[in-house]
């Protein structure tokens, strides 16, 4: 039975949950701001960036938005700070800094 999962919450009795907790929607992970799990944060230096786009496909969380063949700043709502993009960048345009905030102290 296809139900509106938006009506399911922490007060829903077991009889009204979906079978096996099936989710009747796609792409729901973007609603969960998992970026706060991060302990290190990448900083994007757009002056050093040559737009080679080696960073975007190696990001495990798809947190480097690319539009019209150009990348923009990180999606900090979902970036986990793994640092793979920093290693992939040939131009030193990505720097990892400690902490969850994308600002230098």
């Amino acid at each position: 039975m296809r139900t509106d999962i938006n009506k399911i919450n922490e007060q829903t009795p077991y009889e009204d949950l979906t079978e096996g907790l099936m989710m009747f929607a796609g792409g729901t992970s973007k609603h969960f701001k998992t970026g706060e799990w991060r302990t290190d944060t990448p900083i994007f230096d757009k002056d050093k960036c040559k737009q080679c786009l080696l960073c975007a496909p190696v990001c495990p969380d798809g947190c480097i938005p690319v539009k019209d063949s150009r990348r923009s700043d990180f999606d900090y709502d979902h970036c986990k700070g793994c640092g793979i993009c920093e290693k992939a960048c040939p131009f030193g345009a990505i720097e990892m800094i400690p902490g969850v905030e994308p600002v230098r102290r």
Partner: protein
Amino acid sequence: MSVKDRMSGNEAVAYAIRQIDPDVMPAFPITPSTEIPQMVSNYIANGMMNTEFIPVESEHSSMSATIGAEAAGARSLTATSSCGLALMWEELLVAASNRMPCVLALVNRTLSGPININCDHSDSMGARDTGWIQIYAENNQEAYDNMIQAFPIAEDKRVHLPVMICQDGFITSHAVQNIELNEDSEVKEFVGEYEPEEFLLNKGNPVAFGPYAVSNYSMEAKKAQEKAMEDSKEVIISTARKYKERFGRGFELFEEYRTNDADYIMIIMGSAAGTAKQAVDDLRKKGIKAGVLKLRVFRPFPSEEIANALKNCKCVAVMDRTESYNGNGGPLSSEVRAALFEYKIYPEVVCYTYGLSGRDFTVENVYEIFDELSGVSEGNIDIKQHRYINLRTKEEA
């Protein structure tokens, strides 16, 4: 019209799988698995069925692929035995909690150690709390009949749970016995087309299976799964009735053999039930009121029905073909005693462990057990509640 033939239990189940013609069968193709995947892949190679066979690198993968295929919308099954089932452990629970109506053809063989390949129930009994429906067979005929009923039970909307079809290793799986086979077309009609409501390859209707659930949801999800298991009892019974009406064979939750007026009843599962029935026939000729309750369905456990079936007897022998290492008897013993206590029915109960790792279990053993039961019920002897059959001990030397 049924066809008479002779087959091993493995052949019988493979034959049923050919008739069911499921969409996908992932299986690990060599030992510890059985001949079942090999026989099915022969049928496929010979163009006798349309199933997509996926040879995988382990049972962890065969169950994972079965779940994946089932979630995608394909009627899926796999087959294994013994440590192959043990390697599926994690996925068995995933299949059940994701409410996948897939099927597993299991040949019951012991788990190590000591290293041994022969029959006992330690593999499936270890998996008894994974959320699978478990149906056991006495012989090749029942394994065949149970296999054909598996998908109609699993796919019923009140159930949506995986089903394990169990038969005894070697004794049933390899011994060739007479069998009645149904017509292909009749099996096809009985099993029906699979029409899943929700599945991954359903364009325009996105769905995700098996999400992470925080504590606020997880307990409710487990209760809902438990409710489906409770509800499956009715579906198992109605499916068995339909099968019997159509093909003239089979039992519902258990078979009651000469138990009507029985003073002494032995509860047993699998191939040893045949041995027990032979002994009961012999004892009846001597005027001993013995009977056998052969359990077909272990999950869901038919507590109330078993308690009722035992309410008029004096003494019960519960036969476990596995050890629970709890100092108190095997899993069937625990379940039966709990059922009797719950429904306030109190015959004398003795729990026996027999046939571990392929140890013989004979008609003479059953005579001895019934002899002990009559001694217990008349208060002549006082025996230990938990006993091994055919065990070498200093005591009995």
